[in-house]
């Protein structure tokens, strides 16, 4: 995918370089669009319901709300949280023929970080937007993917055959660097030979890591991460940062360092100077496979991002009896018979639910678990979360040559943002659409996570819109005039940050342990916020929680 090059495309991209030079001339992206133009763009500020969420804090001013009526509900199993982990848990239960559960979700929609949206009928993601093709060894996930026709079978060599409608179509990635758009994200345009040699050496090293087996006979880097080798010689990598690892291995090429840093920010929302080297290498080396019709590193993607996957995960869930939107658990307590939970109906805050069950799966992040689970004893040392800013821009494509040569993923070199993906990329339609949605991403890393989160939540719509437009203008001068709508989404706790020591530390191992009949399922328990880990946590928690239910 990265080396998918052809001379003619290079030539083509070279022609686009003229436009790129204009960008260069503008230096650091002089932002020329006027107030009137910006104000003509409609849009809104969106994000998770952190106001309700903050009521869970012990220091919240109005923690105790008067309750008018309490509804008693009994179920076998309560799932708290309808993100990927909670939905995978509910899916697994139903796979096992178990239907007597109730899933509650604080937000109006299921999907968590994988939720998607819709601007004028154009689907787009709000968070997670692709799934790298999993290895065949990730059996439960592959079964799910086969069920929904993403995996269509296996060839003679037992390599999975993926549905090509969902494999990211060509052209996949481009990078704006030194004034021109190059094919692929690994820098090669204007990169000195000595640096190219280092980049080459790095990818050879990754290939070697893919084949590395630890002293315990397990592969060095695997998804789910907990099934990776526990060989101390490999786990020691979790003790240093990715930046330190590069230094240790003698890499000093600026373009390589940018690329690795970009990858750490893209995958973990943090710079490589703060990211665990084990996590950094896991990203590159844990997916060896590809498939019969997919290269290693290929990704599956949909216009609405991973919402396509979560929509399939929750297909068949009975609303009302199996899942409730806008319901927030304020407490979960172990009892002699199992658990009981107090739940607020956020749509009618005076109404509360008292739910009794054999067991519960808390499928939310740990920073919430500690406020909700009574008798919570896990230390959670080292857990922190990266704030993210995501924007969806609807752009006029009719009279627009600015976006010519657009790929699925479009990134600019040396920028705070991660660029944008084109939500309509997988369309099979022939006619040029009149408008398209671009999903723009930036992990907020210019401040430490807590301050960055405060900063992000303090910004108003206009400030965030201008931040997004300034970055888009850098890539495509003049694009603001063609933006019809721009919605921004603030993720306060976008993803867990795998700082050195988190993944191999005692706190994470402890946090995975159930407290009585309350089990935990969330990607932060893997230290890596990806669909596969969240899915895995849901499957594991479902199996564990079922132990408490008499068959």
């Amino acid at each position, binding site marked *: 995918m990265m080396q998918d090059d*052809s001379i003619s495309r290079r030539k*083509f991209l070279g022609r686009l370089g003229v436009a790129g030079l204009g960008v260069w001339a503008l230096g650091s992206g002089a932002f020329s669009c006027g107030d009137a133009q910006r104000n003509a763009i409609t849009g809104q500020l969106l994000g998770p319901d952190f106001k309700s969420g903050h009521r869970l804090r012990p220091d919240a001013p109005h923690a105790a709300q008067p309750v008018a009526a309490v509804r008693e509900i009994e179920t076998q199993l309560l799932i708290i949280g309808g993100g990927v982990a909670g939905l995978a848990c509910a899916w697994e239960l139903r796979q096992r023929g178990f239907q007597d559960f109730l899933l509650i979700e604080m937000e109006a929609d299921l999907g968590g970080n994988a939720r998607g949206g819709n601007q004028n009928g154009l689907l787009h993601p709000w968070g997670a937007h692709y799934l790298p093709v999993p290895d065949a060894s990730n059996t439960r996930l592959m079964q799910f993917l086969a069920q929904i026709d993403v995996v269509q079978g296996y060839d003679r060599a037992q390599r999975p055959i993926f549905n*090509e409608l969902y494999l990211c179509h*060509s052209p996949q990635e481009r990078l704006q660097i030194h004034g021109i758009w190059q094919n692929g994200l690994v820098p090669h345009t204007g990169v000195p030979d000595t640096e190219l040699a280092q980049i080459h050496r790095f990818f050879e090293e990754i290939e070697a890591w893919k084949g590395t087996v630890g002293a315990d006979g397990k592969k060095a880097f695997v998804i789910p991460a907990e099934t990776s080798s526990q060989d101390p010689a490999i786990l020691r990598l979790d003790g240093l940062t990715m930046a330190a690892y590069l230094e240790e291995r003698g890499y000093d090429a600026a373009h390589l360092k940018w690329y690795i840093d970009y990858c750490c920010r893209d995958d973990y929302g943090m710079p490589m100077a703060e990211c665990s080297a084990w996590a950094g290498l896991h990203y590159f080396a844990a997916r060896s496979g590809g498939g019969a019709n997919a290269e290693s590193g290929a990704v599956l993607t949909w216009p609405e991002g991973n919402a396509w996957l979560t929509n399939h995960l929750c297909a068949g869930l009975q609303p009302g009896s199996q899942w409730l939107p806008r319901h927030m658990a304020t407490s979960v307590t172990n009892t002699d018979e199992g658990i009981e939970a107090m739940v607020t109906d956020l749509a009618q805050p005076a109404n509360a639910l008292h739910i009794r069950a054999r067991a519960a799966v808390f499928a939310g992040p740990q920073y919430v678990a500690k406020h909700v689970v009574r008798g919570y004893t896990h230390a959670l040392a080292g857990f922190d979360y990266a704030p993210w800013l995501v924007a969806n821009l609807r752009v006029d494509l009719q009279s627009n040559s600015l976006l010519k040569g657009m790929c699925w993923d479009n990134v600019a070199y040396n920028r705070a943002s991660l660029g944008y993906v084109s939500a309509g990329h997988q369309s099979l339609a022939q006619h*040029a659409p009149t408008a398209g949605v671009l999903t723009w991403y930036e992990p907020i890393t210019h401040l430490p996570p807590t301050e960055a989160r405060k900063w992000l939540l303090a910004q108003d719509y206009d400030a965030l819109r201008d931040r997004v437009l300034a970055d888009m203008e850098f890539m495509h001068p003049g694009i603001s005039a063609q933006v019809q709508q721009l919605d921004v989404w603030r993720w306060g706790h976008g993803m867990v940050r795998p700082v050195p020591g988190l993944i191999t530390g005692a706190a994470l191992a402890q946090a995975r342990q159930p407290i009585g009949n309350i089990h935990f399922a969330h990607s932060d328990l893997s230290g890596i916020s990806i669909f596969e880990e969240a899915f895995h946590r849901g499957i594991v928690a479902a199996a564990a929680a079922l132990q408490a239910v008499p068959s």
Partner: protein
Amino acid sequence: MTRLLLLSVFVIATCGLIYELVAGALASYLLGDSVTQFSTVIGAYLFSMGIGSFLSKYIQKNLIPTFIRVEILIGLVGGFSAAFLFVLFEMVTAFKVLLYGQVALTGILVGLEIPLLMRILEDEFDFKDLVSNIFTFDYIGALLASLLFPLVLVPYLGLIRTALLFGILNVAVALWAVQAFKDKIRSVASLRLAGIISLIALGLGFAYGEKILSFAENQTYPGKVVYAASSPYQRIVLSRGRDHFRLYLNGNLQFDSRDEYRYHEALVHPGLSAVKSPKDVLVLGGGDGLAVREILKYPSVEHITLVDLDAEVTQLFTDRPELAEMNGHAFTHPKVTVIHADAFTWLRACQQKFDFVTVDFPDPVNYSVGKLYSLNLYEELDRVMADGAIAAVQSTSPYVAPRSFWCVDRTIREAGFYTVPYHAYVPSFGEWGYILAMHRPWAIPEIYPKGLRFVDPETVAQMLHFPTDMVRTDVEVNRLNNQALVQYFEAEWAKYEE
């Protein structure tokens, strides 16, 4: 002096009519429908002259310098009119606005000329002589222009140089007037300089007129454009030569009426004649209806479904008599249903089965069209094919783009089909390739519909042979996630056209 002034009336009258004729001819040439174009151009021109005459009363003093300035301006605006419109035709979308703007401007300026001149001359003649003289020369000039234009000017000079030549004459009149009235006007030097500069510009234009024309024609089309429109999907241009039509979509030749029968007979008959009593036929692409015409030659066919993106193309081939005649009135035939839809999306939703399918998409020139040649498309195609059905796929030129051609073949085979690649010579296209896709072995059909001009058993046998310069090469399968075909196609055609 007065004689010379009357001679100048004659010259400027000729020039004025020439600009009008140039605009009318150019509009017919570029936009088609000469009756409408000439009529509206002449109407707009005469009306604009009226505006010019009306405006002349507001010019109170400096009559002579104003007249000279108007002459120079007419020379420039009229002289460069054809070059300007030709070059901009392909570059601007609102061409008509530009055309009528040009006509109006020339008209207004020409409308100013005669009233100004009459007022300049009013002291030299009696009023009755003045009117009589001026209009006599005016109409003689008009006659001369209307005879010279079709008989001499267009054949020998072309539209661009004709306009430039008369622009030169207009400016020459202005320069003569500067000379003649140099005692009565103050700004002699500046007027003379303006005239000389204009004369040089027009002269250079005239000398390099051929270059302007070839630049303009590179942008446009051989033959005469009789229809040009932009649909939401593409630019449609129909051009007409002496005895034939050519259809261009986005500048790419779709067919030439002289040899399209070769293309369409080869596309339809080797496959369709091999299907036992075909009933339901699907045509993907092919909005010209020419493949449908061939399919309608099979009496067993009960129903033809044509799926094409662009309603404007099928409408053109339904409404325009000469085009409807060419496709045998395919779109008004009771057996034919036309669906305007995106082929891939339509195919994915299709629940019907067909006995024969022609897949006649544009060449894979970009990633969007490249998806119509992907493994997924052929898998979907398989799903709508009845037992024993055959599909015929247009597959670009195996001579110019062998890797592209064999990539289509490899992709169709990857979808589980048995393929028969073949090719035919279509003069306006060159050596062209097709691929039959099916699940049972195929043999050259012995019997074809009556009246074919190209396809017969011997010809089909020849079509199957691929000489060394078109021989099968090792290529990748075209998948949505590699778009191998678009890359082969781009490389091969770029090399060929170098």
